[in-house]
């Protein structure tokens, strides 16, 4: 892989997130985006004149509006500035961060604002995703982003009872986190004694994937401002540094073979490469927080193994022992994650924004206790694609 070190350090100096919900009839798209943009500018103490370039993105075909970046200058402030539009499906938010990071690191721009959004209420999410499939074959067969593949896999390996209980435990942990995050879209206040009831009675969507396991369809936007090191230190008292990011795509493919272990996923491949080139021997030890793009409880459970390069049932035990809770050994998604909140084009960016807030120590009620220095954020999209982003409190790596 043609990977080179960055020309210069890039810091996150401003973060904005809207409140996420299923109903934003009160604002149109640029108005909604502007809420996040305004917050990010205020957070950084900057005006729009301080921004050199705007990078904008969402997943297309959900709002049925084309070239939204042009219309959205009303909300982004990109008028008269350099501007780019990036759209890579579910990974869009991660790609926006990667793009903004590259633009600053390259030296082309000193201060770049990335804006990700989605207004899923305006379109038809499952229909939109299905229409991205090959029109001559897969459109007829694909059921949006809904699939039971992860459930089939975990059940085949660990048995129905243990697998289902672990997936529902994961789900309840995420809900408990979401209840601490005022921006979260869905926070049900689920209790531990509801596990059996939910396992039996939550409406099934596909196979063992039930409604309660699946992510929400949300409206909202996220904005992050990136600056080169000197300016970053001037703008922010606690800039969060983007140490590295990696993107792994591959041939369009779904796992319909049930040909499982060992299996080389883009998540695992990305994690291996990223840790190797940054000298991370034990990611579980190294990272203090991980914001994962977990579109369902089954995927979240299964992917822990890939991202932390685990073997056997280590990932299942992490969940069973509740080590992934906000005060556990390896806090996963203190924000409540994607199951609670999924405005798709913003979702992966919210992972980075939330991990950065944790490192700044100002996440609020869902702040991980203790010192948070090393953060990891993942993006997921397409037919199993990955973007992984590493964040740091210091530049001492």
């Amino acid at each position, binding site marked *: 892989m043609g990977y080179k070190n960055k020309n210069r350090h890039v810091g996150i100096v401003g973060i904005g997130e809207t409140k996420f919900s299923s109903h934003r009839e009160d604002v149109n798209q640029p108005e909604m985006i502007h809420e996040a943009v305004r917050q990010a500018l205020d957070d950084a103490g900057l005006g729009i004149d301080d921004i050199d370039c705007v990078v904008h993105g969402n997943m297309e075909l959900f709002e049925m509006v084309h070239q939204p970046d042009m219309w959205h200058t009303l909300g982004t402030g990109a008028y008269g500035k350099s501007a780019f539009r990036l759209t890579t499906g579910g990974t869009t938010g991660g790609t926006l961060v990667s793009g903004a990071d590259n633009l600053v690191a390259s030296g082309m721009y000193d201060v770049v604002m990335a804006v990700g959004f989605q207004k899923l209420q305006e379109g038809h999410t499952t229909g939109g995703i299905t229409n991205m499939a090959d029109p001559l074959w897969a*459109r007829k067969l694909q059921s*949006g982003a809904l699939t039971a593949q992860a459930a089939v896999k975990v059940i*085949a390996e660990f048995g129905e009872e243990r697998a289902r209980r672990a997936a529902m435990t994961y789900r309840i942990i995420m809900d408990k986190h979401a209840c601490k995050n005022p921006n979260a879209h869905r926070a049900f206040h689920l209790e531990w004694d509801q596990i059996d009831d939910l396992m039996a009675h939550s409406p099934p969507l*596909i196979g063992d994937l039930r409604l309660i396991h699946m992510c929400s369809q949300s409206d909202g936007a996220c904005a992050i401002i990136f600056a080169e090191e000197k300016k970053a230190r001037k703008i922010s008292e606690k800039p969060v540094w983007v140490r590295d990011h990696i993107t792994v795509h591959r041939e369009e493919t779904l796992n*319909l*073979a049930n040909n*499982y*272990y060992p299996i080389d996923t883009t998540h695992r491949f990305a994690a291996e490469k990223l840790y190797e080139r940054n000298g991370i021997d034990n990611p579980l030890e190294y990272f203090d927080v991980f914001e994962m793009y977990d579109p369902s409880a089954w995927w979240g459970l299964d992917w822990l193994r890939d991202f932390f390069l685990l073997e056997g049932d280590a990932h299942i035990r992490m969940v069973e022992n509740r080590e992934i809770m906000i005060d556990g050994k390896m806090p996963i998604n203190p924000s409540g994650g994607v199951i609670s909140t999924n405005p798709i084009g913003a979702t992966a960016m919210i992972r980075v924004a939330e991990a950065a807030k944790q490192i700044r120590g100002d996440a609020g009620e869902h702040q991980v206790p203790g010192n948070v220095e090393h953060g990891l954020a993942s993006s997921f999209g397409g037919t199993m694609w990955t973007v992984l982003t590493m964040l740091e409190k210091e530049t001492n790596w």
Partner: protein
Amino acid sequence: MAEYYGVDVADIFNTMKSRFRPEGAEGVDAVFGYDIGEEGKWKLTVRQGEMTLDEGGDLSGCDVLVKVDGRTFVGLNIGKIDAMAALGAAKLKVEGDFNLFAATGKLFTKYVPPGQEVEQEQELVVLKRTISVNQRFATGPVMGTFLKGLKEKKILAIKCPVCGRLQSPPREVCAPCRVRNDEWVEIGPSGEMRMLEYCYYASPDPLTGETRETPYGAIGILLDGCRKDEVFWHLLRPDQLDAVQMGIVMGDKVVHGSRLRPVWSENRTGSINDIRYFEIDQ
């Protein structure tokens, strides 16, 4: 000039022209004088379905003279104050033809202070649409060869000259090997079922916009002649959803799935619909 209820008296006069209703002015031929105390004087002339407004000046000779304070005038116009109550409290005085005054209500659409709707239960505009675009997809020679095979009840796969991997539906290249595929192989048509997506959720068929009947099964089938991940993606006969078994390979652990065969359509046009679905092969 003072604001009452967040509205200037002048706002109400200045918007009269755009709120004027010619149909409400039918048969009205009159001059209305408005004496709004400290706020000023206005003269409204309605003639032959049109209106003119003059600010200031002499109000003598008007057919109707309305004397009212600014606060009451604004209150009347935005619906905060009832006209009869104001008349009763002597906050509003009408000199001249009272019936003409009563007719002024029909002359204009109601004044709504802009921006103030936000604080009220506002009507939020929602437009519902369905985008419907006809499309034409070029198959290209590779997908075209495969689709033509279906017409003859043949399922074709394309083979990578380097790794030997079979792809069906075919792609022009083998992405991992970065080479052009060059050999056609007939596979199946029967095979072993692997993945079953047992769909309860009714998603729309994007080709028609119609909601699919549920439950249905989307399946991965390892057709005879294929290995490893070389599965074929299609549908299961709906009444056999609960009768099939998924095949799974996990390390050394192998579970064989149900044997399936294609059910071909009578009229085959070279599309995915040439196979209706797969069914259990007894």
